[in-house]
């Protein structure tokens, strides 16, 4: 045990003296999480805000109903514009994200043919998308009510009165649905963008942080210090064990620091701390296993670094550390499950969505399975480096 701890302490001391370790283990992942979360903060639910202009050339009751709909939205700041041209200028100048132009006679023609034009600001694509969605949604509501009324009154009822239609629209908007579809799967639980990228970067970079383990063994073989270690009165396994402990500690500190820093400085909400701890520990072990196996295929430290980095990037992207894989094609989502990163992200997503430690045990189990299988194979191969 003494030999194991001595080797571990030496490796940790060396890592602490390597400035690039701090960069890879903390600064880059935290910096990227910060940049991503700042960039995408506006699309988060509850924090999205947009300024829209409305040109109400109709002035009727249905048009008024749409304006009130906009006024009632927390994330919308509404201003009025006198003409469509003025609204277009506001959009072009970036003063508004989009403008709604309600043409004259819109309320009167609500029975068919009327439409709300949307002018978007090209620099605010998200605001434009939301504006179009609002207009489309209103039109759909209007159509649905028309159909409902037509069905209720029969074919002879004709087009409903605009005032009556507006009242129905208002009532429809404020009436609670009689049935809702509650989606509560892991996929549907939403990360905030801050938490998503904090978790994504922590998971992505831990596979780089821990890749020094087997690489350092190759480096010791190349420099001759491994021979000196093997002549010392310690078991060859103690060298591997010591290096593994050092690698685990570095990975654990790196991920923990990112969890704490993103919580305190970025406002990330990781969820149940016990669950987070389970995922962090299993994630570090899986990262060690993967990088040990991949690095052990190499003959030189440089080669090992290349192999491990390639595996980390490919599986990291596939595992959804940068983009939610669940939003891609189904085959990609299924394929992603070959990456331990995907299971880690799934677990973190569940926790961030309110899941408990017990609920993420399947994800933890899958990650640990990766750790055991990959790490076992990696240890066998790495053990050959110390056997002569």
């Amino acid at each position, binding site marked *: 045990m003494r030999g194991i701890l001595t080797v571990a302490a030496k490796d940790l001391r*060396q890592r602490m003296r390597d400035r690039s370790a701090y960069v890879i283990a903390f600064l880059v992942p935290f910096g990227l999480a910060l940049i991503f979360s700042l960039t995408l903060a506006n699309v988060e639910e509850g924090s999205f805000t947009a300024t829209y202009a409305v040109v109400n050339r109709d002035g009727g009751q249905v048009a008024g109903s749409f304006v009130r709909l906009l006024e009632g939205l927390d994330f919308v700041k509404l201003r009025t514009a006198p003409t469509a041209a003025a609204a277009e200028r506001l959009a072009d100048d970036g003063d508004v994200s989009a403008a709604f132009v309600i043409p004259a006679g819109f309320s009167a023609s609500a029975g068919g043919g009327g439409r709300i034009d949307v002018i978007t600001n090209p620099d605010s694509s998200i605001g434009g998308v939301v504006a179009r969605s609002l207009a489309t949604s209103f039109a759909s509501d209007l159509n649905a009510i028309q159909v409902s009324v037509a069905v209720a009154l029969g074919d002879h009822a004709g087009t409903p009165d605009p005032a009556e239609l507006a009242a129905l629209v208002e009532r429809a908007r404020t009436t609670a649905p009689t049935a809702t579809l509650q989606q509560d799967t892991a996929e549907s639980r939403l990360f905030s963008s801050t938490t998503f990228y904090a978790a994504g970067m922590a998971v992505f970079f831990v596979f780089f942080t821990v890749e020094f383990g087997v690489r350092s063994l190759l480096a010791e073989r190349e420099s001759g210090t491994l021979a*000196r270690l093997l*002549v*010392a009165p310690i078991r060859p396994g103690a060298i591997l064990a010591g290096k593994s402990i050092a690698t685990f500690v570095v990975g654990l500190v790196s991920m923990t620091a990112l969890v704490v820093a993103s919580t305190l400085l970025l406002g990330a909400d990781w969820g149940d701390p016990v669950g987070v701890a389970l995922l962090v520990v299993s994630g570090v072990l899986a990262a060690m296993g993967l990088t040990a196996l991949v690095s052990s295929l190499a003959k030189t430290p440089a080669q090992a670094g290349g192999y491990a980095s390639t595996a980390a990037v490919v599986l990291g992207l596939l595992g959804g550390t940068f983009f939610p894989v669940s939003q891609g094609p189904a085959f990609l989502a299924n394929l992603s499950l070959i990456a331990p990163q995907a299971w880690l992200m799934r677990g973190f997503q569940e926790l961030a969505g309110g899941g408990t430690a017990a609920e993420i045990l399947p994800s933890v189990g899958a990650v640990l399975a990766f750790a055991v299988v990959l790490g076992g194979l990696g240890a066998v191969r790495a053990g050959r480096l110390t056997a*002569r």
Partner: protein
Amino acid sequence: MQPSPRRSETILACEGLRRSFGDLVAVDGVGFHIAAGETYGLLGPNGAGKTTTISMVCGLLARDAGEVLLEGRPLDTRTIAVKASIGYVPQELALYPDLTGLENLRFFGKLYGLAGHELESRVDEVLEVIDLTERAGDRVEHYSGGMQRRLNIGLGLLNRPSLLVLDEPTVGVDPQSRNAILSSVERFREQGLAVLYTTHYMEEAERLCDRVGIIDHGRLRAEGTRRELVAMVGERDRVGLSATGELEAAEAAVRALSGVDDVSRHEGGLDVVAREAHRVLPAVLAAVAGAGGHVTSVEIAEPNLEAVFLHLTGRALRE
């Protein structure tokens, strides 16, 4: 360093060492022994099997056949405790450049079971021996090549080994550092260490080693003291005398001396062939003078290990 009592007992005994790498037989039936206070040299060209041999001796490399006994205890790659008696100085600079000299010494000291005050005092002693006390707190990457070489040797001394194994420690070393290393090895012998020293430099083997094993193509071709090896191959000393006067009479007088094998005369003097030139020289000088010759200069040429190696293998050491 604390001097150890000089002992005559065998520290290292190895017999029939054999190791192959695929079809290549790197070491084939090598065996030798080293006593306390003795320096044994393995002399051979690059690729002769020296490093493979000492790797098996240190338990670093598994052997296909043979036996290694260190202080009477069997040693192989799986034995742990016995290795504590070995000090190993590899050919490469096996150091951690991002650690200080002190940290390197402490790390390896701990691996050898040293701790606390014992560790610190031993590290201080070794730093003194290798003359690095002043620079102990500096990172090794900032050391000169010579300082790194000294630290490389110092690490092999930490555990007070009974057997010190040095694998070509002077390769790529400047002359000043090389001389310092050779002086250190001479001191280790005086302190009672058994030293196994591999080299392909004939001068080093002649200067340091009590006995030399000549190894080539994985086989130990011959073994013994320098004189024994020279005698083994029939090489003899040559004495060149520059002389004037009655050279013909002088030649006859010298030829009659015991211990002189041959004499030849030329215009400037005599060439004498003898088994031990230094021993017969006084008699030779007296004989020349007695015959009316006047010696103006003497030059003795003893056959060296290079000649022995050439004789045994048919090629030069540095080929």
